[in-house]
């Protein structure tokens, strides 16, 4: 099952990289959200093997529990990821307002599309 987690991480990274390399800003945004999720999974997989372990809520000291540290890190990462994604959404809209395009290629070519 380590293999499964690692494969999932690999696939999500490949897909999000592909999305980010696309021209459309919306795809870049989706790629970013996806890559944030993939990174969370990398952290999560650091927990090791969760089988036979309980959630890290200490009610009975004798029960083996999952590593809480990756979870705490991910919790922070999810929230920060959301903040950045929200900012990106607005940025995307502002770029559209200014340039009337969602295409990075057109934007970096420094020409405003005239076919409004």
């Amino acid at each position, binding site marked *: *099952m*380590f*293999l*499964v*987690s*690692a*494969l*999932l991480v*690999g*696939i*999500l*990274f*490949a*897909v999000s*990289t592909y999305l*980010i*390399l696309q*021209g459309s800003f*919306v795809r870049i945004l989706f790629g970013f959200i*996806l890559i944030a*999720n993939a990174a969370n999974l*990398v952290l*999560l*997989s*650091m*927990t090791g*093997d*969760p089988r036979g*372990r309980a*959630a*890290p*809520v*200490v009610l009975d000291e004798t029960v083996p*529990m*999952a590593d*809480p*540290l*990756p*979870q*705490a890190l991910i*919790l*922070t990462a*999810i*929230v*920060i990821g*959301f*903040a950045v994604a*929200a*900012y990106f*959404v*607005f*940025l995307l*809209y*502002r770029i*559209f307002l*200014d340039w009337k*395009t969602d295409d990075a290629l*057109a934007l*970096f070519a420094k020409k405003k*599309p005239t076919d409004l």
Partner: protein
Amino acid sequence: MGRRVHLLAMPVPVISCALIAWTLGQHEAGTQVYLEVWSWVPSLGLDMVLLVDGLSLFFGLVVSGMGVLIFWYAGAYLDDHYAEHNRFYSYLLLFMGAMLGTAFGGNLLFLFIFWELTGISSFLLIGFLYGTKEGQSGSRMALLTTVFTGLVLMAGVALLGLQVGSWHMRDILAADLGAMDAGMAAGLLLLFAIGAFGKSAQAPFHFWLPNAMSAPTPVSAYLHSATMVKLGVFLSARMFPVFVEHELWAPVLAGVGFTTLLIGSVFAFFSHKLKAILAYTTVAMLGLFIGFYGIALTTGARFDFMHILNHTAYKGALFMVVGIIDHATHQKYITQVGGLWRRMPLLGFITIVCAASMAGIPLTSGFISKEYLLTELYRFYESPVGLPGWLPLVFSVVAFAFMAAVGIRLVWHIFFRPETKEVAEHFHHPGLMIHLPPLVLAVATLTFGIFPALFGPLLQGLATPGLQQALDPEYTFKLWHGINAEFLTSMAILALSLPIFGAAQALGWRWDGIPRYLMLDLAFEKGVYALPKGAARVSQLLRAESPLDYIPLIAVTLSVFTGGYLLLHLETLHLAEAVAALPDTFYKQHLFVATLITLASFGIVLARRWTTQLIFLSTVGFLITVYFVLYQAPDLALTQILIETATLILILLILDRFPRSIQRGQRTMKRSGARKALNIGVSCAVGGTMFLLTYGAILRKEEDYIGQFFLDNTVDLAKGSNAVNTILVDFRGFDTLLEIAVLLIAILGAMGLIMRYRRNPAELEEAEFAAGGFSMRGHSEKEEK
């Protein structure tokens, strides 16, 4: 305060000078006293230690004594010609403090910090007239040169300290180069020498000093003649006991020093700008002092302070004279002044005395100094070490002849040739006050020249262990040593200077100063400008302004280095065994969820409409919730659900405001097949790298991991059973606070992006592009009005 601010600044050098003189009175000659004032950064071995010995007292006296005269002089010089007197005196005081810190530095790191501070204050003072082009380029050149060589020196300071194990000067001065690696010893010597050469404007760094003369004259006289540029000499003297026995000491210091002496004096002779002439003679004399330490006996130098003091006096006075001429006639070139004797006889007297001292004419201190210098040069000629014995002697004789010719020229051209029309037009008398500081120096030059025995007690009191040979207490300096080799050489130098001056006079001095290419400053400027150009070319090469091009570059670099490394060590991952063991450890739920996530993520790529893509994206997000549950992370699952919902709503809200055609992906440019293939290749490489990296990391779960600490202590320390929660709000509470701050910043930024936008009228006409809301006027609102 305005102009009178110098009255406020004046007490500082006066008090400093008095205190140092008092300390000198208390000081027992030939000893070194360390005052451990304060442990500044103990972990770095950086302590504030003051070292009081002959050398530091001598430089302290020169700095504060010249400071008194310069502050006095500046008060009259700045006058109404300059604005912002307060800024000027602040810089000057900063500089003086830095100089004293360097001179008395008893910890090599401490000394170095002040060494660099002098460079910074010098930069500020050269650039005092920051509006002028000369001020800008001169200060930049001085800063870059001295900072670059300062960095070289820093490497030397760090290495020497590490070798010795301490930066305390007591340990540094006791350093044994012989016990070190031969390469290390030679490297240290070169690093320190380059630091000294840069500060003292030795070849090939000599170009910055003449350009630094764009500063107001008091600054030139103080920093760039009397004190700061002598720091290279000071460093040579300070490190003398450490390095003198090294075989490179003589060739490096004497070779560079005497070459600079020759170059500087010849350049001075061929210059026309008054301050440039003095700048080059200063460069030359600094070369002489450094070379003097280079040829000194390993047991110690002799009379070194006398030579430095002599130069400080006459050169400082000459700079002040040039400043007075500038003040009185507004002329900066010697070719434009003449006939000033009639108008300013006192200034003429000062100039004659100082120029005579520069030329080494009897009855001035310059003559005494030159006699003793020649003695050393003859001694070296007879028993050379490390470089040909004739070289220092011949270079010096030629250089002295040129310098004497420069002295004759200064006196003759400025005062005794017919008055030029520039002088007649602009002259106004500068007043008596401004004459007094150079007069003091000129009188001192004469006094010591006529009664050289006065040098005796001074040098006795300033004797520095390790640096100088012990002076016989009975020794007296004499004006007349009889007709010996030194006297004859001295006369020969003067005789040689006359034809040199005469030839130039016959040619009418018709040349435009020194050829620029010899001054090296243009080459330096070119280098400075080439740097950003080169940087721009590199960033162009890396496509820094085009993210779509550099992201693949970064991704490929990551894959090649990280992924490549992991591929080379593939056997450590035991992939084959993991695949073989897959059925045994088959974890159906994991595989099922992972497959669904994979399919949904492919959906994002394949779908064209934004809404469809968003649905797939949300599907991935919600499925990851399930994955979190499988990993025993209920908190994460809850948070993920909340955040995923919020993201979905937010994106839907905003995306809805885009025109439908864009939402359908119809307006995005088509990419070429090759680009698509590249994208797929890069993505697969990144995916593969992350797979290997993650798998490799999972395999290495430590038995003793940090998380266990939180599990063990969450109830006791944080009074909470949920370890994840206590980490966030208790153990790492501040991190969470900052995380909230990030949210706040993102919200403010997002609001700023939208709210600051103003629609133009044309935009409002088109319903597709002008959705209302978010404090923006929309198409529909316009129709209502």
